[in-house]
């Protein structure tokens, strides 16, 4: 076998894996997105409408995923609940990014007392588990859609800010940023034109990974009764609701839990794919 052939074989492996991941991850997320967007339209049910004659009905032609203790259509509630969960997750990640990225850039680039002060605050958050921070914030403001979003956003930013800051520290003294400084570029321009583009792959991957965590933590808060409040559905709230019937009607818990698993799996696969594409050196083998 020639040297050229060996080289071709070693590059073919990751390509095959990436293709597989894109298809699986994309299909999972695509199907779930479709389910959330059009599910309630095709089912024709109001997610909160009760039908006491149809309580605990198993999956059937009328109710594709069955019904809950109040006869509400689980397919519709899962679809609407998925919207809630994803909106919270996206909002929380957006909020965390909006706080963490500027702070990380600033502290990493400026260093000195700004870095010291902000990183001590970050350390303070690090001393407490993320979910506990979120529970504390929900406890302070009361459980609701917006509080859950706020709580997760505020709980996630410290970790993200430290990551960005570390990356900036690694980039700010590289030759090309020094060169920009030498030709007279100001801090703002250096951050915007030199540092942020270098960080983009990291930011994209990290944001995607964080989205998976946000879905899980929303489910965690909802399961503890601290997320979206009944009768509005969210995946976490539906999982919590199913707990009361886990021994008598176990399929409700399965139906509530499987989409969480699938969406987090889909997000993680896509994060892997993005990492492989944007940072080929660190690609998984």
């Amino acid at each position: 076998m020639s040297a050229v052939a060996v080289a071709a074989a070693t590059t073919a492996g990751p390509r095959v894996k990436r293709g597989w991941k894109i298809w699986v991850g994309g299909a999972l997320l695509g199907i779930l997105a479709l389910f959330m967007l059009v599910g309630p339209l095709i089912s024709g049910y109001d997610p909160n409408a009760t039908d006491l004659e149809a309580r605990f009905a198993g999956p059937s032609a009328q109710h594709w995923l069955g019904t809950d203790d109040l006869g509400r259509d689980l397919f519709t509630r899962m679809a609407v609940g998925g919207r809630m969960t994803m909106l919270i997750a996206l909002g929380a990640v957006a909020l965390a990014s909006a706080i963490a990225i500027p702070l990380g850039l600033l502290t990493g680039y400026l260093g000195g007392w700004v870095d010291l002060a902000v990183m001590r605050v970050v350390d303070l958050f690090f001393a407490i588990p993320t979910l506990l921070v979120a529970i504390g914030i929900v406890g302070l403001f009361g459980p609701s859609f917006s509080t859950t979003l706020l709580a997760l956003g505020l709980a996630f930013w410290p970790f993200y800010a430290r990551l960005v800051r570390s990356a900036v520290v690694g980039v700010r003294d590289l030759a090309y940023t020094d060169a920009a400084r030498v030709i007279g570029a100001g801090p703002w321009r250096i951050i915007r034109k030199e540092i942020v583009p270098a960080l983009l792959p990291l930011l994209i991957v990290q944001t995607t990974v964080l989205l998976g965590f946000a879905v899980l933590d929303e489910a965690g808060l909802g399961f503890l009764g601290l997320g979206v409040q009944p009768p509005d559905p969210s995946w976490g709230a539906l999982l919590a609701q199913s707990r009361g019937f886990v021994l008598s009607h176990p399929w409700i818990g399965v139906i509530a839990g499987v989409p969480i698993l699938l969406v987090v799996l889909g997000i993680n696969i896509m994060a892997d794919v993005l990492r492989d594409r944007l940072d080929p050196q660190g690609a998984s083998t």
Partner: protein
Amino acid sequence: MSKRQFRVLAAGLVAAVVLAACGGGSTDDPAAGDGGDDGGQSAGPLRMLGVEPTQGFDPATAFADASRVPMAMIYETLTERDGDGEIVGALAESWEISEDGTVYTFTLRDGIAFSDGSPITAADVVFSFERAKDGEALSGQLGTLTSVEAVDDTTVRFTLAGPMSTFPALVGRPANAAILSEAAVTADPDYFTMPTVTSGPWSLSEYTPKSQMTFTANEHYFRPPGIATIQVSFNNDPTANAAALESGSADVASVAYSDAERLKAEGTLQIIQSDQLAPLFWGWDRTKAPFDNKDVRQAVAWAVDREGKQEACWFGTGGVTYGNILRPWDAAYEEINTYRADSREDALAEAASLLDEAGWVEPDGGGTRVADGVDGVEDGTPLAFEVPYEGNWPAAECHVQLLQQNLQEVGIEVTPRKYDPAAYWGDVGNGLFTMYHGGAGAADSMDLYTNWFASGGSLTALTTHLADPEIDAKVTEAQQVDEATSIELIKELEQWQADELPMLVVGYQWPQVGMTQRVQNYKPGVDADSYTLVDATLSE
């Protein structure tokens, strides 16, 4: 992940599971006792799941069952209700009532003592009732008590301003009418933090906030309890109780209605239900719109689906009422069907008509009703409000969600609000809620009307906030006349509450109690007392 990494992870998981399993089995053996048998008692411990006594152990101030139930285990009263609800002597052996019904003379049992062995005397009874008269829990009902005096060491005389046929029941009110040790209470300013010298069947031997409390049988109690040690672990999550019973980590716990049905069918546990008078109700703020208007209250009474909620949220247990509070087997029961309609459509039409009359009208195109000429309310204000419920009560969560759907059908917008159980009843008492969900117990019909609707009643102060001289007079009269007349007066009160709706009672629940097969001779009592628990034993 490489194969090697996968193997390491799998091995780690297996090891963790094995270690967890070993750890779980190495602690207390559920069947193991804590020592030898003592006077025919089961050594125990009996492991119960319950709620924390958030209002403490002071009988003068605590009115929530969370505190009253453990207090009833450590404090005894002069009288009590037996398993059938009849008033019998507890610390009092007998009592006499004067001809005019104003003087009650109680004779204490011979040789009764507090848990430290010091004798229970008439002076302790006097001390306890003088203290209770000044406390929040019983001050209203003891309002007619003009004097309490010790005739001798074992005789105590109560003099009332007027006759009160329910006085023997009142001095047996579990926990709140407790007989305290004057010496112990006056000697320790922090006595009620951890009361140790007590008159009840058990003593509180350990209390760890947020965790558990342990009770040890009082060897000086006149009716020795069948179980020497009772351990109550605090658990605010009733959905976990069934699993705890099934796994053998608890012996007695109330179980969710959905679990009760399943467990009954399986037959591995004992499932018993208490048919105590425990009405389920909607409370409301009648001092301001919309519920200051009787038409609105009646509209809600028409719109709620009573059969549906009982089936869905209480799994068909308990009962439904369409006007009554009392149960069909109560002596003063006379069926009231004020809010029963031939069909759901008819009921909703009645509700809509009443709301129209009250000035809450449907906007063009339907949707939430808005004010149109309602006193004190700006025109166009939507008929919308939050309805809080106790966050640790799954049936309440179900009930509020059904209410939301029911009232939506007549244009009322309800937002369910899960509420912190520890703050819930305090905030109900503070009048923070427009409408709220509730459930409470009463020993009998007289206890119900005295406590819930007459001035000075503990639930009157908490929920209905009534101070109606006519109702007070009728309740008082019902306590002073012969039984037949008293029943007629209570029937009148039943009709009055159905019409006026100071609260909307929609049914009653029968708590479902699950027990392992170890527990013998136990049945839930008719009130918060521990009378029936004293008879319980544990098989080894």
